[in-house]
């Protein structure tokens, strides 16, 4: 074959380069998707084993109040009541977000609407630093400041849902604040100008215009805060007291899904009922984070319309 014909008919150098690029990037992205899929498959198959291999009743698992996987109950099935942990997890998450939301919105409003350029920059960098502080440090702060505070001024041993939600409040606050600031900044400037030009006061503008038009962004920030609080393990584990019993008050020792997981996985043998039951708790965590994700998506879709 003559060289010119060959050159025209074969791929050019550029085409080969492009093919190479496509292969490289598709491989990377496929790897990430593979990781996500295998996390789901592995955790789900382990978590389901409690119900299919150990024959625990799914409904009893969700509503039972006794968590003692090594003991058998009157019917001969293991005592796997996860309600205390589920209550603990939802308790600390909801309380933490209830505390954090007004503070986060207030701080964000101050940063975007009231503060001068300098104050805004200082607050911004403080919040950025706080977002990056490791959760163990928050846990240690909880242990050395919040637990004694609760013990001395409120009552109880200091360990419990209240301390857990205080720690999570401090942890979630910077995240929710910085996301709220982003959504407040995204409000078009002329909305504010139009409202002020109509003679509205600053507060009326904030309340009737700015907060209304950034509602979906603020909701997203709150859900993100909830997801973070729900999945946080060590900081909560350090201050909640770790008693797998139904919490009777905000001041009594309790436990969350994550705290039981971190304490238990190392002390149980792979493949036993006790171990499988922990994986079922991990599955609940996984499904909840999926749920939070879907809620964020739904809010985003509604906000766009």
């Amino acid at each position, binding site marked *: 074959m003559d060289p010119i014909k060959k050159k025209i008919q074969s791929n050019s150098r550029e085409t080969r380069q492009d093919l190479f*690029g496509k292969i490289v990037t598709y491989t990377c992205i496929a790897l990430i998707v593979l990781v996500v899929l295998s*996390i789901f498959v592995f*955790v789900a198959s382990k978590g389901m084993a409690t119900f299919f291999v150990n024959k625990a009743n799914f409904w009893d698992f969700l509503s039972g109040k006794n968590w003692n996987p090594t003991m058998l109950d009157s019917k001969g099935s293991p005592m796997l009541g996860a309600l205390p942990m589920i209550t603990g997890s939802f308790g600390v998450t909801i309380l933490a977000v209830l505390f954090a939301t007004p503070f986060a919105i*207030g701080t964000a409003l101050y940063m975007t609407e009231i503060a001068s350029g300098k104050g805004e920059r200082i607050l911004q960098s403080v919040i950025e630093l706080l977002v*990056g502080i490791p959760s163990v*440090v928050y846990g*240690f702060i909880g242990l050395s400041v919040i637990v004694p505070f609760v013990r001395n001024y409120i009552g109880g041993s200091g360990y419990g849902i209240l301390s857990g939600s205080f720690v999570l409040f401090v942890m979630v606050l910077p995240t929710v604040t910085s996301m709220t600031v982003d959504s407040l900044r995204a409000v078009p400037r002329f909305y504010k100008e139009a409202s002020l030009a109509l003679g509205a006061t600053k507060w009326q503008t904030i309340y009737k215009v700015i907060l209304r038009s950034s509602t979906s962004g603020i909701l997203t920030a709150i859900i993100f805060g909830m997801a973070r609080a729900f999945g946080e393990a060590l900081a909560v584990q350090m201050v909640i007291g770790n008693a797998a019993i139904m919490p009777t008050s905000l001041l009594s020792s309790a436990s969350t899904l994550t705290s039981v997981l971190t304490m238990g*996985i190392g002390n149980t043998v792979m493949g036993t009922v006790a171990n499988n039951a922990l994986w079922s708790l991990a599955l609940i*965590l996984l499904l909840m984070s999926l749920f939070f*994700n879907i809620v964020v998506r739904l809010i985003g879709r509604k906000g766009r319309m």
Partner: protein
Amino acid sequence: MKTKLQNKIALNIIRIIAALVVLILLFLLGDILISGVPHISWHFLTSASQSFESGGGIGVQLFNSIYLLLLTLIISFPISLGAGIFLSEYAPKNLFTSIVRMAIEVLSSLPSVVVGLFGFLLFVVQFQMGFSILSGAIALTFFNLPLLTRNIEESLRAVPDLQREAGMSLGLSKWRTVMRVILPEALPGIVTGVVLGAGRVFGEAAALIYTAGQSATNIDFGNWNPFNAASPLNLMRPAETLAVHIWKINSEGVMPDASAVSAGASAVLIIVVLLFNIFARIIGNSLYRKLTATK
């Protein structure tokens, strides 16, 4: 008059809230720094930790944290670079791309305990790698991938399309345009993101407890052969990091000066995160200046 009064009250409430938040946060941070910084000394930063007596340091843990961070970055950066380039340059608008985006979002919102447990199940147990630095680095990679990918994608997207068109019109392939034109321009943003992500990885503990382990074996800093079990570079030795150390000594309660050591270690963590934040900004700015030749 009523609305004006309302306005005044409301704005003052907002000011009070902001001041309260700053006070609470500064109080907590100050508390840690004031009780922790006096413990930081050269001896504390370099000596080995003690289990049952006081006076231990955090030298091994500090080294482990840094080593683990470097390994994580070496594994996760190339993958997320490829994934970021895919999402910003190659991704077609179809079902596959939206599934990929969904997957990355889900991965980034997974609780780190779950990521750690998955690493434990797959690498420590299934592949029999044991509690090792390598298992820990892979678990941290899962945790770091979504953040890094999103950051790289955003930095690449911020490059104007004009640059892409210019590259194409010179007859460059798309791949070459990305590597030689787009990537250098996006570099400052990417570096800033990598350093900020590094701060998060440095302080992560929940994903490491069951992958890198909770024990700091004695390592011999004179032995740099990676295949020797006592070498600091050995990939298969268990490695407790600084963050895991803080958690462990507080939940075990056998170390007499646990609170002092954890205060010191927490202060070190906070200072390192602060340094990462400052570095991210400085490096990003100086790279930007260098690459764009602005003053």
